Every structure is written in C-alpha cells, then in structure tokens.
C-alpha cells in the first residue's frame, strides 16, 4: 500500500534523511477529504433538517427553538381549517406524495423504454462513432434546465409550433390542450432526466460481452429470450443506477410542475419550496416533509438492497 502511494505523495524524505513511508499507519488520513465532504455536504445538512423539523414555526419563516411534533402532526392529521375538529387522516399531503411518486415512476418507465434501446444502439456502434452519439445525447444538457423547461413550454402551448402545425395540416380543429396538465409535467420530467438513464445503461452494455449473445443464439435462444435472459440480467446494475438517477430527482422536481403544470397542483418539490420561499414560510413543516420523503426513499433502497443480497446468496 505504502509503496503505491509513495511516488504520488510528497517526497518521503524526512528531516533526518531516512527514506520512510510516512503514510504507513495513517492511511485513514487520506480518507479525510472524503469524510469531510460527506460530513459537510451530507451529515450536517440532514441533521439540520432533522432538527428543524422538530421545532416550532415562527411567523413567516424562521423557527422558535422549542421542541414540537406539530410539523409531523400537520402532515398526517387533519384537524380542520381551525385546528379544533377531531383529528382525521390528512389526505392532502399523502395525495401530493402519491401524485409525485406516480409521476416519478412514469418518468422512470418512459426513460427506460426510450433509454435502453438508445444505449444499446450507441454501445453497438463501431468504437469510433460511439463518442459522437454520446456527444449528441449530452448536447441539450449544455443548456440550463430552466431554459430547456421554458422552451418545452413554448413548444407545447396552445398556439405553439406543434398545435399550429397540426391545425394547419387539418389534423385537428382545436388546439390540443397540453400545457398546464399532468402530461406536460411528465414530458418535462422525461425530457430532463433521460440522459441519466442512457449513460449508466450505456456504460453497462459497453462492458457486456457480446459473445454471450452469440452463444445463446447458438443454443437456439430467440432474440427476445437472449435479451431478457442474458442481456438485461448482465447489465442490470446499469439499469438500476439509471432508474434511481431518474426516479429520485423526479420526485423532488419543482421546475416542471411550476412551469409546465401551471403550478396548480403541488408536487413534493413545489410543496417544500412553498414552505421556504413562498407565502407559507413554514420551515419546520418543509423540513418534516423532506425528512418523510428521505425516510421513504431509504426504506425503498433498503428493501432493494436486501432483495439483492438474498438473490446473490441464492444464486451463487
């Protein structure tokens, strides 16, 4: 270990002139930058969020430093507009979560349906032209997400190019109402996160040994069977990574619901944004919503990891 590190590190010559591996026994120090990044960018913010979710809301932003479960109570229980009716289950926020999960799940499925063939196509091009195809995939992402979302809005609005073209072609008589609908939100999510599906799957397929497909064909496997029994299981890590990379940011998106969905219905991202930037100014509630979302995602990932382990134990 030390031998590997020595050439890249500072000259390992100490004041007394002896050559020594100064990193011996201190390798863990080399992890310090990583720990620092995790600590500063992950642990501290999450702890802050957790703390704030248990505090009392100050009027219009800010918190009062008193312990309270009010934020979580508000999420789960409906006590009427005036807060004095007997508590019943609050469906408002569960509905917002449901809507967001459905949208994110759909975005993930559509991204996979388009992203997998795309990645497969790119990975099976000759080595030389692959870079070009990847380059094409990334071009739109040189432009800021906000601008791309607004452009999408211009495309699908009632008198935008799509409707104008369909109208002038006599295909429709009335503009198709696409803007300010759930469809528009879905389109925005799909478009925003598609490359996050393509790139990891591409990386997996590129490493896939195509001799396996040939072997399968030799053994009278049909193309579909090869795809489902050989290719997809082999590139599964890339597919999973792609799905997670699309699903999770879609859950928290607020640009698409705001700009394309007309801000009529909250999604999780816009609900949280409203607590911090908007009228409500309820920081503990915003923090609580974020913590609940974080917990749900962690549970999902834990279940996935356990299922994965069990499969590995059984399979090998």
């Amino acid at each position, binding site marked *: 270990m030390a031998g590997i590190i020595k050439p890249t590190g500072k000259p390992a010559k100490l004041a007394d002139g002896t050559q020594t591996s100064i990193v011996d026994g201190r390798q863990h120090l080399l992890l310090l930058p990583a720990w620092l990044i995790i600590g500063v960018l992950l642990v501290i913010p999450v702890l802050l969020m957790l703390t704030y979710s248990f505090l009392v809301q100050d009027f219009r932003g800010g918190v009062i430093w008193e312990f309270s479960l009010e934020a979580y109570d508000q999420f789960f229980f409906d006590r009427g507009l005036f807060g004095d009716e007997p508590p019943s289950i609050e469906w408002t926020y569960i509905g917002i979560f449901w809507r967001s999960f459905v949208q994110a799940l759909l975005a993930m499925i559509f991204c996979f349906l388009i992203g997998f063939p795309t990645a497969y196509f790119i990975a099976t091009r000759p080595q030389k032209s692959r870079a070009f195809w990847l380059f094409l995939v990334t071009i739109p992402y040189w432009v800021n997400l906000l601008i791309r979302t607004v452009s999408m809005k211009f495309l699908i609005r009632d008198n935008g190019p799509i409707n104008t073209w369909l109208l002038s072609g006599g295909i429709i008589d009335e503009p198709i109402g696409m803007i300010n609908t759930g469809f528009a939100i879905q389109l925005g999510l799909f478009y925003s996160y598609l490359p996050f599906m393509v790139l990891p799957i591409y990386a997996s397929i590129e490493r896939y040994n195509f001799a396996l497909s040939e072997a399968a064909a030799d053994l009278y496997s049909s193309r579909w069977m090869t795809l489902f029994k050989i290719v997809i299981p082999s590139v599964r890590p890339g597919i999973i990574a792609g799905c997670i990379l699309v699903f999770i940011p879609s859950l928290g998106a607020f640009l698409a619901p705001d700009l394309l969905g007309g*801000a009529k219905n909250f999604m999780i991202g816009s609900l949280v944004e*409203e607590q911090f930037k*908007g009228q409500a100014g309820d920081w503990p509630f915003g923090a609580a919503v974020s913590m609940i979302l974080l917990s749900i995602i962690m549970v999902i990932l834990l279940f996935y990891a356990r299922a994965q382990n069990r499969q590995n134990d059984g399979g090998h």
Partner: protein
Amino acid sequence: MRKFATLMGAAAMTVSFAQAASAEKLTIYHWFEYIPQELLNEFTAETGIEVVMDTYDSNEALLANLKATGMGSYDIAFPSDYMINIMRDEGMLDTFKSSELSNFDNIQEQWLNVSFDMGRQSSVPYQWGSTSFMVDREAYSGDIRTSDIIFNPPEELKGKINVLDTAGETLAFASLYMGIPQCSNDRSQLKKLSAMLEGAKENWASFNSDGAKDVLASGDVAAGMIWNGFGAKARAERASLEYSYPKEGYLVWADSAVLLKDAPNRDAALKFMDFLLEPEVAAAITNYARYTAGVKGVEEFLDEELVTSPENNPPADAPAGTFVEVCAPETQALYDAIWTQLKK
C-alpha cells in the same frame, strides 16, 4: 527576488482593488423587471458606486429570503405597503432623518404621511399601482367590469384564466369579490371563501406571477390577474387586451425603497434613495414599468401615452382601490391553510 517583488506587488494591487470594490458597492433586492439597467449604470457613472441586484417575485418571497439569509447582505429592498409593516415588526428596517436625503422634499404629499411609514422614516416612495385583471376582448366581448371574470367566468373564458401566484394579493382580491373582510376570523366566511376558490380553480389554467404578462400577450390565456403597469406592457404586445376596474373592488399598492437594518453600505443606500427621488429618475422608472411615481415634478419627463393610458386612469365610476391588510398571525395562519388547500 524580482519575481517575489512582482508577486507581492500584484497581491497588493489585488487587495486594494478588492477594497475599492467593497467600499463602493451597493446591493439591492428588487422585484423582477422593475428598474431599467441603464438607470443603475447611470447611478454608477454619477457616484462610482457599483450596484448589484438580486430579484424576487412576491413580497412573501422577499421576506422569506431575508429571513433565511439574515440581515447585513442587502442595503435596500422594495416591499409593498403591508409588507413594510411586517418587516418593521420583524426589526428588519433601519431609519434615517429627512435631512439625510437632499431630495426628501420631492416626495408627493399623499405619499408622505402614509399608514405604513408615518413621515417616511425608513422608506421613500417608489411606484404605486393597482392589482386587477385583463381580458382578451377577442375572446370575450361581454361586461368585464366584474370579478366574476376570474371567480365565476363566462363560458368563453373557462379554462383560459391565469391567477397571480401570490397568496396575499390573490386572497385579498377574492375577499373583495365576496365582500368579506380581508382578515376575517369568521368561520362561515372563511369556509365560503375556501369553497368559492376551489370551485373557481376548476376554470383556471395556471398560477403564474412573473409570467402573468407573457401568458396574456401570447394568447395562452384569455383572462388573467395582473398589475396595471405589467398589464400596460402586455397590451403593447397584444392590443386586444383590456384592463378592468371591477365594481366589486380591486387592490392598490404602493411599493417603497426601504433602508434595511445592518445595511453593508448605508451611505451608498441613502445616495441611491436620493437618486430615486430625482424626478427624471422616477419618471424613467415609470416609463419603463408603466406604473405611477410618488415623486413631484415627474410629469414633464413622462411618455405621453402613459398620461392617458387606460391602465393608469380608472373610469370615473370605478370604486376606490383597497390596500392589502396585515392580519394577526393566528388569522394569517388560516389564510395560509386556505392557500395550501387550494393548491394541494
């Protein structure tokens, strides 16, 4: 050694530049599309003070961001009347003496002793105007002098309405429509308000504030709530738009430039306020934003069409406008709940 000296020299220069920049910088927090960049350049040319501007799209966002970033990062902000009261209660405002501003006497009489800042101790008037709605006359030719257009729309306008995504103004406007107080604690009134809004929402296309002009001008919606000056700009792009002064009442507001507590550069802030009170500057802002200035002597610098524009001149039989009121925190919480319920 020579190299070292050069380096030190460069370092010293960098430091002195940095100091010069930090001593002569003014940081303002302003509404979107509310001041022409040329005016900021002019101020810099006159005083040598560089102006850095961030923008927000509602009074509530201004308050929330100031609370989140803390005081001491901005010198000046531009809240509306009711928000000035809230910010003062939060201890966010600094005060000045009228003698500190050489143009203090340029403030119009009607905007000097205002309820939100008696005698103007923390603020100077910026622009004032009204909040109501516009209708595309090509889409609907009937009577538009009623807020039914927004809350109980005729068949032609259903599904083609945009409302402002600012809870304060939209809820106050709805209260005027229903003829109930803005800060009501009456259960049946609040429930009716909530039910009315949820019913009306069925006919709305979107909630949008900073795009309120664009959705009207592009024809995406055929009616939409808007501020009068922003509406004048929309009409410049689409002539068939008409601003309404509804019989149920409409909102008026007065934005002011306020001196923030712990302003990093108080002197520059006062210079900028003085600058804003010059008639020519106030008129240039009016010509740009299409609202009305609160400064004396602007008339000769105003664009001619502004003097007669329908957005700035309510018809003789229009009711007087109403200011947004500040509710007590417990009451405000009810309105926040109605808003969340509306957008769930």
